[in-house]
């Protein structure tokens, strides 16, 4: 078999597992150096997220928006586009979800799940439109998606934060946030009191769909050819709009990720609430590979690092920034190909 053939799943997973394992070793070393009570810190870090069903479910919940953003980044990668705007696309997603859920709250009488579905679709549309600007700009003027998606997203994030903290702010609250969304429009909690909501199963369904799309559909395999050799794609007669489709889907997934934040755990849009999920999604996608198959384990791993470092900062004296350091280490090991993927 040739080198290119995606042999067995195990062969693909091994180097990634090795990199993630190495990141955990870093975690242990970090705790040894940075903590005055390394034992307690390590226990809190590694076992904390699994110590109660509450914290385990919280971990699952926080992986949902990350997974959505990662899938978006995967699809853009596959088409050869570096969508650096996941953060902004998620951010406009939060605003769109909050606005539409708020508006629907006044309508009343809607069947319970329809309102949620509309809010999520609005978020997807908002993210998608933002991403499409970059794709269209590239087709029209040749401006690189990598630059425009990043710049547009930065601007969009600022605009969204301004809107949430300014004209749309809930004046009756001390938070820099919009009014809370009516419970009917929120994603139902699956295991109260834990924050685990319908967002997690939805994100799983999205992951399955995304993998099927990239590996099992005609459009998905055409997107792959486009990503590998755009001139070939043109010569063979693939639609010139294919790249824009990929970016649109990518933005829509990030927008959905944003809606999970609003409709799931918090129930309202707050200033700065995306908190880096777009960037983390990009990192998850880089680790997962472009077909989306590895996105779920990678997203769960990142969520675990987040949750673990939070636990360790509460129960021991480890800084909550630990997770950033460890994520960076994992990402570095994969992208620098120190462990051959």
């Amino acid at each position, binding site marked *: *078999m*040739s*080198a*290119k*053939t995606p042999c067995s799943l195990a062969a693909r997973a091994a180097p990634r597992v090795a990199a993630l394992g190495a990141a955990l070793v870093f975690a242990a070393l970090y705790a040894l150096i940075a903590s005055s009570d390394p034992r307690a810190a390590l226990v809190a870090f590694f076992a904390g997220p699994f110590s109660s069903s509450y914290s385990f479910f919280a971990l699952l919940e926080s992986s949902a928006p990350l997974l959505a953003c990662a899938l978006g980044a995967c699809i853009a990668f596959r088409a050869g586009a570096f969508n650096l705007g996941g953060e902004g696309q998620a951010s406009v997603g939060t605003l769109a979800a909050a606005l539409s859920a708020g508006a629907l709250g006044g309508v009343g009488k809607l069947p319970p799940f329809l309102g949620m579905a509309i809010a999520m679709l609005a978020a997807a549309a908002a993210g998608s439109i933002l991403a499409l600007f970059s794709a269209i700009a590239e087709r029209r003027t040749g401006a690189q998606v990598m630059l425009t998606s990043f710049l547009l997203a930065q601007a969009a994030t600022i605009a969204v934060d301004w809107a949430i903290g300014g004209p749309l702010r809930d004046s009756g609250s001390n938070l820099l946030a919009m009014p809370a969304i009516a419970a009917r429009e929120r994603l139902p909690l699956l295991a109260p009191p834990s924050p685990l909501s319908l967002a997690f199963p939805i994100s799983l369904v999205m992951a399955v769909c995304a993998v099927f799309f990239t*590996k*099992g*559909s*005609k459009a*998905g*395999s*055409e997107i*792959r*050819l486009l990503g*590998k*050799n755009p*001139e*070939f*794609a*043109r*010569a*063979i*007669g*693939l*639609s*010139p709009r294919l790249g824009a489709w990929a970016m649109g889907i990518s933005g829509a997934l990030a927008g959905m990720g944003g809606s999970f934040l609003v409709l799931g755990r918090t129930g309202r849009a707050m200033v700065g609430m995306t908190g880096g999920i777009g960037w983390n999604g990009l990192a998850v996608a880089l680790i997962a590979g472009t077909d989306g198959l590895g996105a779920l384990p990678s997203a769960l791993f990142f969520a675990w690092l987040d949750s673990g470092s939070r636990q360790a900062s509460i129960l021991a004296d480890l800084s909550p920034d630990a997770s950033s350091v460890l994520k960076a280490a994992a990402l570095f090991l994969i992208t620098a190909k120190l462990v051959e993927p």
Partner: protein
Amino acid sequence: MELLSARGITKYFRDTLTLADDRVSLSLAEGETRAVVGENGAGKSNLARVIAGLVAQDSGEVLVRGRRVRPGSVRDAESAGIGFVPQVSLLAEDLTVAENIVLGREPRSMGFFLSKRMAYVETAMLVERFGFRLDPEARVSSLSAAERRQADIVRALAWGGEVVILDEPTSILSETESSGLFELLARLAKAGKAILLITHRLSEVLRAADSITVLRDGAVAADLRADEADEAILSSLMARRGARISAPRVFTPPLRPDGPPALELRDLPLARDARPASLSVRRGEALAVVALAGNGLGLLEDYASGMAKPPAGEVLVGGVRLASIRRGLLRSRLLGYMPSARERRGLCLPASMRDNILALRASEFPVRDWIGRRRRDAAARAAALPFGLSAQPRQAAASLSGGNRQRLLLARELDRPREVLVLAEPLQSLDLASQAEAAAIMRELAARGSALLVLLSNIEEAIGIADRIVALYRGEIVWEGRNEGASGAARLLSAMTGAGLGRASTA
């Protein structure tokens, strides 16, 4: 005396399960020019790469003046005196010739600063000594194909100095440029350099070489002196059994013989200040356009295939504007296109042979990869078979040899008679037997009613395929007429090179 000898070179590629070279031995004396000939995949290029140190052999050894060269070490090969000219030039476009020659071991002044002057002097000395026509201060991006080749050779001389290995050096050169190159090589040989020439063009071999090694299926089939050989002997020695191209079996009914021309090109500007060119190709006709590199053939290819929109004029397929036809439909049903830039445009190298060969038939296989993978593999095998392409469906296109890559394009684009076929250099990197077979398929498709526009830089190939031939010079049509066989070749050649054209004709 013996300068270079290779003994029992064997190389097996595990990825593709191929034995590229099987106990190949050859020797080279000072002042000798030896040609290594063979069909595609006979192991010529790999042998060259082993001797140059680019590939480590599994067994066997390379000796220069009795000293063993470390396998797989370009450095060691160079210090032993071996210089290599790759098939595709690797010069840096933005640097000058001299800067390219010294790139990697730049002369320093005061131990740190790059001394451009020393680089120029060194290059100028080599250029002078062997009579190259090359300006050391010219930027590589401004050079013609022939000048680039010269620069490659100067670099090989500067780095190796004793033995120059050339891998298919004329594949990108026109005929006049090629003969210039061979004069140059003859001068090098006279100065005592040994030359190893890898090629499949037998006429070149007989003209330039003193001795010939014939490879077949990776092993030495014969080792003879040039004066003992002629083309017939060589091609029978090279000929491999099996893997032949045969005409496609599935044929749709003949296309309509009447109606508007299948392909019409109106008033296309092919060069600055050139009269716009107009051409039309009827159903059932094969029209060859011949031109040397840089005379508008590339633009004609882009416009006729719809890869670029002409700034003026128009392209019609069956009377309909090409630009108005949906691209997917156009390519899958109406227009077959073999690009000259095979690796950039014709193939998706990281993708599998299967995905490449079935790329135009997506509608037959609506669900990809997981489901129907077997069915697609079988379809890919079936498509490859009549064109003699021996490769696994899941093998990456990048792992195919040049000849097999070309067979893949043939199999994809010539599997059925489409309305129009735009074929740019369709015979490139095929061996002689395969060229004849591919040309026969093209004639067959024309007979079935396809309109063929064949873009070529080689007159003999045009004579083998076309009903009608057009010659381009500086973007203008300078000759147009029926294919008169070999008797018309001289006239075509003079038209292509602009001979007999007064300056006034461009006005």
